[in-house]
């Protein structure tokens, strides 16, 4: 009888531990921002141009660009990759006046790359990145940027 009770207790404990660990790892997964990737209907150059237009249509600006493919050509690597830093002065002013450390996530970074002949656009959802800030204003900007980027991606994938 004693032995049976011991076995039952052990099984119960293991079940609790397993459930707890799974839940913990799931919550960790939820906290880690996952990049969103959208396949473009255009070629690489076309996608780069489309992003510039879509940014403008979304009342945003390309604040800076990194032609990563061209930069890496200096190392002998041939790759099509281009990063955009997107934002606008109004969004920047709101975010920085609320929390000057917002520069870590603003402007938002969008990356275009080519793989196996297909062009993809990838970015971290701004609301995921901005969620670690205590400022409500910064969080709100993150949500607003989600919408802008979503609209941009729809333009690119259509």
């Amino acid at each position, binding site marked *: 009888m004693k032995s049976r009770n011991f076995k039952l207790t052990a099984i119960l404990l293991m079940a609790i531990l397993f459930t707890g660990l799974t839940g913990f790892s799931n919550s960790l997964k939820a906290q880690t921002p996952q990049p969103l990737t959208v396949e473009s209907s255009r070629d690489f150059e076309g996608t780069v141009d489309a992003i510039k237009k879509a940014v403008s249509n979304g009342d945003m600006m390309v604040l*800076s660009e990194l*032609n990563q*493919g*061209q*930069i890496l*050509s*200096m*190392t*002998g690597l041939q790759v099509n990759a281009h990063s955009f830093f997107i934002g606008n002065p109004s969004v920047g002013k709101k975010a920085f006046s609320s929390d000057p450390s917002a520069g870590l996530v603003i402007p938002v970074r969008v990356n275009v790359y080519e793989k196996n002949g297909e062009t993809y656009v990838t970015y971290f959802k701004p609301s995921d990145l901005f969620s670690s800030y205590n400022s409500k204003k910064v969080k709100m900007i993150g949500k607003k940027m989600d919408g802008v980027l979503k609209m941009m991606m729809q333009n690119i994938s259509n």
Partner: protein
Amino acid sequence: MRQEKIKLVLVLITLLLAGISPNLYPIAQAGVAKLSSLAVKFLIPSAVGIILLIFITRALKYKSLTKQILFGLLAGLVATVGLEIIREIGFRTGNMPGDMPKLIGVLLLDRFAHGPSFWSNVAGWAYHFWNGAAFGIIFSIVFANAQKWVAVLYGIIIGIVFMIGPATTTLGIGIFGLEFKDGYQFLITVTLAHIVFGIVLGWTLRKLAKNEELPNIFRRLKNAIMGSKRNESVN
């Protein structure tokens, strides 16, 4: 005696101006200032200064000094062709982490984010060749008609100084490029390229100077202090 002192002053000014260009890239890589602003403030004025010195020494009829600067400049340019051949082969065979003149070009024109362009490549190559010319002038003035092995040693020392400076550490390959690939590819390519630079520099200088005996800096110093008994046309 006074003439010798003027010549010595001109030699020292030439050395100072020639020493500027090779130091700018390591200074920029050390984070002191942007290469683009250093080029405007120091590189262009120093290059103009050297060209002016050639005309000044010529106007003053300091033939040997004019020849030393000109020969050094030309020999340095030719020697850089030799160095570039080895460097380019090294890069294309994957034994160099990057294309140095292209990197210098984007830094010179402050367009790293956009990558290299035709004009940035031109600027990068021009800077690399001017560096070679500057090293040629320094060698010609300091060592003049030295033995060829001195030029080879000179080339090796330039290579070593390059490999221990911020120019390599900022590339992420460590001192002597030991963290690049198996640790020896960069070291061998750079050393070989600078040995070729030294050989071609020494050989070209000798060819240009032919049988002329050009005074090295130590002799000029001695002449300025002790007074020269030599004829002006010789020195």
